């Protein structure tokens, strides 16, 4: 497929994304403001303020304006890539979000990679010998992973691997007792990453494993696989060169879709492990009803999901010669 048509396709998809984003912002704005609670309450804290003080806060943040005025003001700012000012931190929302993004991308990227690779591998192995003891074991583990709530699994991981075995730290991204520099710091972060990344990948591992297994079984029963075997092609080559490329396409779609779910799931994992990412920022913004941060996060997440979908489509084109973009 020529590269130019792909570029045109990607450009078209991104243009289409603008009205989608607009609608997403409208819906988010409505939902966030429909939730009970007042951001001013968090700013006051657990104390008794005067009504005059509360009014002055409302004026400061434009919360005294009618809702539609607030919406128009917000849309005007968004058009200039300005996500506004956090009520709680009194800092620009964009810098808050960008500050938290690397930690989330590191955790999510590791988990996505881990769950996709291991999931596909296990799926293929299970499909080679369906209904064997190994297949049943893998199915059991993956079902367990799929049905365990992330925060509960996280607690168990902490109790077993951090408290009892003491292999990994429980909280945060860096060791605070003895801070290290350079490569030591990278290793330190990797050490802290293991438990949250494992916890985080478990659910998706199950999803990808199950899908790969089913698709592989389907493909393995098709005529061209029989033909390949009849020609005397080695079994490994039959699986990895003939069958897997055909079975992997729906898996790619699910990995792409998972991206969005993983962003949402980061709230729980990051909270349990005190991982300083966007999920925690979201969690705290909900508790404080920090409207600009909530809106900013949802907008940034929407953009990321839209981008992930476009990337998924491009990957599709690269691995499936039948796909042509017009």
């Amino acid at each position, binding site marked *: 497929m020529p590269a130019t048509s792909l570029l045109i396709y990607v450009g078209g998809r991104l243009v289409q994304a603008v009205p989608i984003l607009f609608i997403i912002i409208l819906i988010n704005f409505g939902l966030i403001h429909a939730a009970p*609670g007042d951001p001013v309450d968090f700013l006051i804290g657990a104390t*008794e*303020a005067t009504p005059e*003080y509360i009014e002055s806060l409302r004026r400061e943040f434009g919360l005294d304006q009618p809702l539609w005025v607030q919406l128009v003001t917000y849309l005007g700012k968004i058009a200039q890539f300005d996500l506004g000012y956090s009520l709680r931190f009194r800092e620009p929302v964009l810098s808050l979000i960008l500050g938290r993004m690397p930690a989330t991308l590191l955790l999510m990227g590791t988990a996505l990679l881990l769950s996709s690779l291991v999931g596909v591998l296990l799926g293929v192995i299970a499909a080679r010998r369906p209904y064997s003891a190994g297949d049943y074991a893998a199915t059991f583990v993956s079902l367990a992973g799929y049905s365990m709530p992330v925060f509960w699994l996280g607690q168990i991981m902490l109790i077993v691997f951090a408290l009892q075995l003491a292999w990994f730290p429980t*909280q945060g991204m860096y060791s605070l007792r003895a801070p290290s520099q350079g490569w030591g710091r990278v290793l330190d972060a990797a050490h802290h990453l293991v438990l949250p990344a494992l916890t985080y990948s478990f659910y998706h591992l199950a999803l990808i494993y199950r899908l790969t297994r089913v698709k592989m079984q389907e493909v393995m029963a098709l005529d061209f696989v029989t033909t390949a075997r009849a020609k005397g092609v080695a079994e490994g080559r039959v699986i990895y060169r003939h069958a897997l490329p055909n079975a992997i396409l729906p898996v790619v779609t699910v990995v792409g879709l998972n991206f969005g779910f993983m962003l949402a799931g980061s709230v729980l994992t990051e909270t349990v492990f005190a991982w*300083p990412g966007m999920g925690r920022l979201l969690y705290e913004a909900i*508790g404080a009803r920090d409207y600009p941060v909530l809106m900013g996060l949802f907008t940034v997440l929407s953009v990321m999901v839209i981008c992930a979908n476009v990337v998924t489509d491009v990957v599709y084109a690269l691995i499936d010669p039948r796909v042509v973009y017009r």
Partner: protein
Amino acid sequence: MTACIRALALTFAVLAALAADISPAGSQSAPKRGGSLIIALENEPSSLAPHLTTDTPTFMVVDNIYNALVLLDENLQPKPDLAQSWTVSPDGRVYTFELVRNAKWHDGKPVTAADVEFTFNELIARNHPRAGTWWPNVESAKATDTYTFEFRLKEPYVPFLTMLGSVLSSSALIMPKHIYEGKDAKTNSANQAPIGSGPFKFVRWQRGSFIELARNDQYWKPDKPYLDRVVLQVMPDAAARFLAFERGEVDFLHWYIVPYDQLAKLRKDKRFDLVEKGDAAATNGLLLINHRHAALKDQKVRQALAYAINREIISEKALFGESKVARSHVSSNVRWAFTPEFDYKFDPALANKLLDEAGFPKAGDGKRFALRLFWAAGRDYEGRGAEIIKDNLRDVGIDVTVQTFDRPSFTDRVYRQWDFDLAMQLFTTGPDPTISVNARYHTKQILKVPFVNAMGYSNPATDALFDNEFKESNTAKRKEMWRDIQKQLMTDLPALPLFELPPIHAVSAKFKDVVTGPQGYIEGRESAYEAR
């Protein structure tokens, strides 16, 4: 499920304790320099700007960076910090403070009365959430010479120094004029990277993760501080936070985040100390009663609730026996004012009798009327308490539905819409009851504003006492007035005091003097040291 996790955690912890029970007996020695104290924060501080907030995590950080004018001693009386001495005029309206001469900001400039004047007039009066409750009574606040500062009040306010010493109430931490002058106090970059005069200097704030402070080698108090570093780590999940404490990754859990169900276990573990120090906030857990409700507006019905609810059981089961029953609207920690003499005994028979007399007889199904009881998710002991109250009230024919909300929704429902019957709420009652109690129950505080009189309670007799007690400089007379206030409140029951929040902090046994005073959970750690 949490019970399951707890059981597992407990099992492992017991094993760990058995394996590690060979620690040497603690040897008390003179404080030495060095060491890093790691403190758990339950939330990311909103800023490091005390003039903007009443946020506990913020004060846990900035109390290390800034000095107060005065602090509080064990008896909740003022003690020197930046002010080395002070005088009060005979009419109780003029407070004159003499500042220390050797205090310096972290950038080397001297701390003077001009900084104090600027802090109160330009930062606190204009920005702090609580300033509106006391600043209107200030006639002037000014520097009279380089190291002398003077407050003039419009009318006497006896707990004035106690309020200044309670930095959560007053935000009276002195801030640098040369950093804040001429700039927007709300967006100044020092709000995230403060320059103070205190024992520790700000090093960095890794967003979402931790705040690091380092020893101030030029600190104006001799020999202090002892620690090299204080690190405050944000740990939002309660169970994981406790695991980190058990593993020794964090050294200090303050009293709002200590898990009461684990304290019995910690007491037996030599690796940890439990510090039970006076609690300046003197916080009570209360059951708010909405006086607008058709049944609850009757005093007899409210008193029936007080007789029907078994508060001993709440302390025993909901707070695992760690708390005392609250016997008044002032906590027993405020020793001079507290009186238990107007408390109610658990007496369901009397409750039934009062409800019958009030005109709410039991219907055919044994029920008199229905009530909704709200609590905000986050403090699990409030939830357990609510369930106990539901059981107790069912026994006297009141049908209670317990409902839980997230904190912002709860605040909205209870304090802005007044749409509740009963609600679980923590209220401070200290360090002086004037500061904490008057604002909750005064008629003029029936406002759609958080943490004031959402109950709609109004009694002119109580109001009159509230309006005059803080002008009474004779301690014995003032104590008598507070006795009358408590008698009135316990008779009228705008809220039923349930339990006193236990002031217990958990500290790693490696560190000493982490908590030294009545504001232990937020105090600066200038006296803390590592025992080696």
